[in-house]
């Protein structure tokens, strides 16, 4: 089979403009497909990172906007396998302008960096933050976006928790994800609240000692509060974050629909090209057959040509998509997405497989036609 490879490649080269246009068309579409597959993979198929797998999140069963008594943490902590529990509260509010949206959490300041092992912060900054009740730490992306440095003041105007809050930046942390995030001490928030609003928790983030016991611990927590006024819902951090993605709309269907449309478009482009190139060559096929090439050889050569073209387009497209995926991961939306690796072997394999299948399917009909044409008829063709 591979004996004919030089001939196949030469055939690709004969109409350079057409090959170039086809490859360009396929690679642009494949690039899109690559991005979509990478997003889908990251959202629905990827495994949790080792740090993520060790965390489970407990919220009020009714919805995230309802609170739970802070005291729940005591019983959660007693469940075997639980290493640490952190209380955190979504703060909301505005920073200078309502358009400046980023995540702001009030959390147990001494536990943030124990629970989120992947957040890296210099030890001295961490100590300075834990000691200052009105201190805050911010992610690197946030610091860059608003040009903030350690020691700067940040003022937030609360909405869920009305009032003016002022913080001193005590540290800047690095995160493998997009990090437009701000954490500050829950003690500060609690003190500013009226008596009746104190002692509540938005979510509990629990650090466990073994990913395998996540399910057991999650159901133990929910079971504990099954008959309480505020029932809980505990899920893995990965599922918890997916909940936010689903708030955007039906993302899964959206991604699949676009992938299908793109794939079908590539198929059409490729099929069209192959049909055109085979039609031009009927006579040549007759000559090849006269020289002793079998029907199978002809079939293989044409299929091979289509597959090489679409593989080349697919490879180029995938390379382009890795660049785009990097951009998506660093956009503000990246904070809710799982980390997307620029090169993901399974995504690459999916793209290559798609390219091969498309090359094969698109050329099957014209190739079969050419292989089956009798020699005399092929030689007589004037087209």
């Amino acid at each position, binding site marked *: 089979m591979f004996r004919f490879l030089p001939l196949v490649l030469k055939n690709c080269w004969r109409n350079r403009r057409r090959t170039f246009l086809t490859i360009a068309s396929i690679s642009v579409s494949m690039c899109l497909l690559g991005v979509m597959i990478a997003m889908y993979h990251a959202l629905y198929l990827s495994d949790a990172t080792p740090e993520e797998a060790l965390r489970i999140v407990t919220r009020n069963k009714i919805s995230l*906007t*309802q609170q739970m008594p802070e005291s729940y943490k005591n019983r959660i902590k007693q469940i075997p396998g639980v290493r640490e529990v952190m209380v955190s509260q979504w703060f909301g509010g505005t920073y200078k302008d309502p358009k400046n949206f980023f995540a702001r959490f009030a959390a147990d300041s001494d536990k943030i960096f124990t629970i989120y092992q992947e957040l890296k912060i210099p030890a001295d900054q961490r100590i300075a933050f834990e000691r200052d009740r009105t201190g805050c730490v911010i992610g690197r992306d946030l610091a860059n976006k608003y040009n903030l440095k350690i020691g700067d003041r940040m003022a937030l105007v609360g909405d869920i928790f009305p009032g003016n809050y002022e913080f001193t930046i005590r540290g800047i942390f690095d995160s493998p994800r997009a990090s437009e995030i701000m954490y500050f001490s829950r003690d500060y928030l609690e003190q500013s609240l009226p008596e009746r609003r104190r002692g509540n928790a938005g979510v509990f983030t629990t650090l466990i000692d073994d990913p395998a016991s996540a399910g057991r611990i999650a159901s133990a927590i929910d079971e504990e509060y099954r008959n309480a006024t505020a029932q809980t819902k505990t899920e893995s951090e990965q599922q918890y974050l*997916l909940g936010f993605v689903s708030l955007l709309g039906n993302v*899964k269907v959206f991604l699949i629909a676009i992938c299908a*449309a793109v794939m079908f478009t590539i198929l059409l*482009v490729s*099929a069209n090209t192959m049909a055109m190139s085979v039609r031009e060559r009927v006579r040549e096929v007759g000559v090849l057959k006269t020289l002793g090439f079998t029907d199978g050889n002809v079939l293989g050569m044409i299929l091979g040509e289509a597959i090489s073209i679409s593989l080349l387009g697919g490879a180029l497209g995938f390379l382009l998509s890795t660049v785009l995926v990097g951009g998506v991961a660093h956009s503000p939306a990246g904070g809710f997405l799982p980390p997307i690796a620029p090169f993901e072997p399974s995504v690459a394999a999916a793209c290559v497989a798609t390219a091969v299948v498309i090359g094969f399917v698109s050329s099957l009909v014209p190739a079969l036609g050419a292989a089956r044409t009798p020699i005399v008829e092929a030689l007589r063709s004037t087209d």
Partner: protein
Amino acid sequence: MAIPVAYNLRNLVVRKTTTIMTALGIALTVAVLLAVLALVNGLRTTLTSSGDPLQIIVMRKGSESEIVSNFTRTQFQDLKFKQGIASGTNGQPLASLEVITVINLSSTDTGEGTNMTVRGLQPSGIEMRHGVKLASGRWFQEGRRELVAGKSAADRYPEVQIGRKIRFGRGDWEIVGIMDAGRGAQASEIWGDLNQVSADLQRQEVLSSALVRATDAVTAKALANDINNDQRLNMNAVSEEEYYAAQTASAAPIEYIGIFVAVIMAVGSAFAAMNTMYAAVARRSREIGTLRVLGFSKGSILVSFFLESVLLSALGGLLGCLLVLPLNGITTGIGNSNFSETAFNFHVSPEIMFIGMAFAVILGAAGGLFPASNAARKEILTALREI
């Protein structure tokens, strides 16, 4: 002299396989663009029909949505007797104090939990929403744990049916009615009695927001200004219409991604159209030569091939429009600023189809320009000699 369009049409028919394949590629590109536009358009239709320009939503200063707003009963007493508020059938001012919360229900679409808005309100609040009518069952009674659900919510969630119970706050709430809100966003909400909902949420004194109705359009502006400038009240007033219009922003990510995808696909399809047109030019070399011999100018050859490419893509655009038509009316949901879901229908309007056609024609023009100029530049003799 121009070459008749019939010549191009006949050429497209003769090469029907190629024509259909290229047109289908363009159709899919157009369909992706149109699907996204229909989604955004549907959301916009829902949101614009949700708000009444005469009504004003009052929230705490600094709050962008009702869910994060706080509103005390004392503040409401001050607001209620402002100048310019219309009177209801019972002579009371048309002002409604409301409380908002979000509950998580599992959806039939995805199986995942979705957030729904629960609104506690008084009879005046129902009276003020003219678009909302009871479709079946009855309204909730004051002081009882009863709910009336919007039609979209009832259609999409198995838990939301008359007679079923939903658990939140301090007990089980029975659904006693379904309300029809037309296209309005209220169709995705669940309503209950203000006092009962707020008692269950332990928010008797601090509620979420208020809605007031002005007597006429001029008063509405003045009333909003009056509330905004009232230092004691410390509230922010926006017309209901503007409040919902601002929520269109929640479709922005999908709109951006969709347009981005459509543009990239368009680049791919333009290359494909170019390919088809180059092949057409190559195969018709002799024809081109003959046409030139007959006296047609280079210009008319250029125009003719260019036109053929545009016709081809217009066919694709038309197919694309047909492809998205079945989407019209399909219901889907999207997150809103209250951290819950607004259901709406895809809306394929003539304007959108026009955009799709224009998009296809531009794409075909881009793909046809080079092959057409290539055809026009052919020398008569060489063109005639080519097989």
